[in-house]
């Protein structure tokens, strides 16, 4: 397999973007990526999107996106793995280039959540329709159960959860593209309205419109597009049981663990080598469980990471310098690609006030459903 580089990136602001349709969002991000690399053609397009069908009644996003980009004819398909759709789109784009089949590929993510759909119902389709949703569970409810299991097994507290939101808002306040650019305090988080006990509103990522895109090519050709490429060193992907009740231990995200093992092996690095990471904090508890599964914290000790500053900018392993899903926003299918863009900028030294100084090796971890799928990518400065 050839080595693959990211040579361009583009994204929209994240937020409630009433004036933008799904097509508008995709085109802005995609054009941004192409223009930043001075590219004017593509071999293929992978569009990560959880549910154009349920949010705006639109399936068949591959040809729609290619067409609206002015590139009808290009091979294009939508990729779906619930909230991991973006990360999986990135992986498929990576494999398309690595295999030698394509030389210039766009990995994009787009989600239009605010066009009047019943968002709770749509997001619930990422869990088990017959055996979970049937009983009245919601997405926050599933993570609330994970939180309670983690709290019962390891003594994690509600305050530990609040610290994750506080840290990520502090980072997001420095991100011009973030949905929420204000800090929050622990007290505010702990007093916000209950969503699914023990999770409160400020433990939960918001409903967001947004798109993001990255341009991939073989590392050997990166100079055509940029003198500061970022290599993808490894990709790992894994699934676990769809239903939370079928997991070995609801407090342990085994899909993340497995995806991480595969990515570390492919990249030839370990958790200690990672200098900056974007991790899937759809709910505060998710960041805690994910950093354990990624090996940044020991099993059960993830609750202390945000509180102690270990995962803050300036700490041992800055996590979610973009603001994470919580503060930056979570347009479901887009997130995985947006995470890649943050690491791309970090490793190029372009992250401005959010810069993790001297970072050369970074990681993104994207996750679907209640941890039923996860994809991990490891990046290295390519110059």
């Amino acid at each position, binding site marked *: 397999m050839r080595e693959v580089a990211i040579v361009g990136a583009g994204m929209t602001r994240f937020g409630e973007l009433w004036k933008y349709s799904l097509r508008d969002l995709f085109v802005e991000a995609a054009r941004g990526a192409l223009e930043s690399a001075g590219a004017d053609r593509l071999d293929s397009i992978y569009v990560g999107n959880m549910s154009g069908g349920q949010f705006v009644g639109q399936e068949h996003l591959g040809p729609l996106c290619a067409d609206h980009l002015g590139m009808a004819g290009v091979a294009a398909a939508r990729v779906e793995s619930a909230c991991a759709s973006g990360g999986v789109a990135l992986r498929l784009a990576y494999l398309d280039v690595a295999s030698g089949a394509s030389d210039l590929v766009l990995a994009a993510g787009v989600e239009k959540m605010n066009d009047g759909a019943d968002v*709770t119902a749509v997001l619930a389709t990422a869990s088990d329709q017959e*055996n979970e949703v049937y009983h*009245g569970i919601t997405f926050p409810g599933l993570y609330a*159960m994970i939180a*309670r299991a983690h709290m019962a097994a390891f003594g994690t507290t509600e305050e530990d959860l609040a610290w994750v939101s506080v840290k990520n808002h502090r980072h997001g306040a420095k991100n011009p593209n973030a949905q929420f650019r204000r800090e929050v305090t622990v007290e505010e988080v702990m007093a916000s309205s209950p969503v699914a*006990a023990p999770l409160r509103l400020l433990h939960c990522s918001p409903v967001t419109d947004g798109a993001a895109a990255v341009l991939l090519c073989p590392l050997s050709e990166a100079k055509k597009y940029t003198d500061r490429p970022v290599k993808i060193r490894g990709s790992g992907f894994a699934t676990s049981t769809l239903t939370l009740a079928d997991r070995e231990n*609801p407090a342990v995200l085994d899909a993340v663990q497995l995806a991480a093992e595969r990515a570390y092996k492919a990249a030839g690095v370990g958790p200690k080598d990672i200098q900056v990471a974007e991790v899937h904090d759809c709910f505060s508890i998710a960041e805690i469980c994910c950093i354990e599964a990624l090996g940044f914290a020991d099993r059960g000790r993830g609750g202390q990471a945000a509180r102690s500053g270990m995962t803050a900018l300036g700490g041992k392993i800055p996590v979610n310098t973009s603001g994470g899903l919580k503060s930056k926003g979570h347009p479901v299918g887009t997130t995985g690609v947006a995470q890649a863009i943050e690491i791309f900028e970090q490793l190029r030294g372009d992250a401005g006030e959010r810069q993790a100084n001297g970072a050369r090796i970074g990681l993104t971890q994207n996750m679907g459903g209640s941890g039923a799928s996860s994809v991990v990518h490891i990046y290295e400065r390519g110059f």
Partner: protein
Amino acid sequence: MPSPRYTREIPGRYRLEAGRCSGCGKLVYPVRRVCPKCRGREFETTQLSRRAKVVTSTVIHVPPSDFQMQSPYAVAIVETPEGARMMAQVVDCDPNQVLPGMEVALEFRLLKREGRAGILCYGHKGVPITPGG
């Protein structure tokens, strides 16, 4: 929910029918075609007992639209004595009391209605077992 889909699930939902893998003995609920442990394809039908223990739980404060009027309500992952785990609401009690370790009886309940004119969907919910009850 369209009725063909609902009707297929009746044995599992109404009678807690599970499958025991003839190859490795793993209990599968609800029934499936392939054993998740040994990939065997032969199962014996068995019925779960109508008692369980709460493994983890939450209280839903922001419900899906078809559960609107019922919130807040407790939902839990419960485990039967045979070792099967399932999602179930726990009702007829203060939802904040539904915590890991609580013992429940599984009672037949109306889980939801498809609006004013659609079908009625039944299943089981947990009810706390009080000492001596």
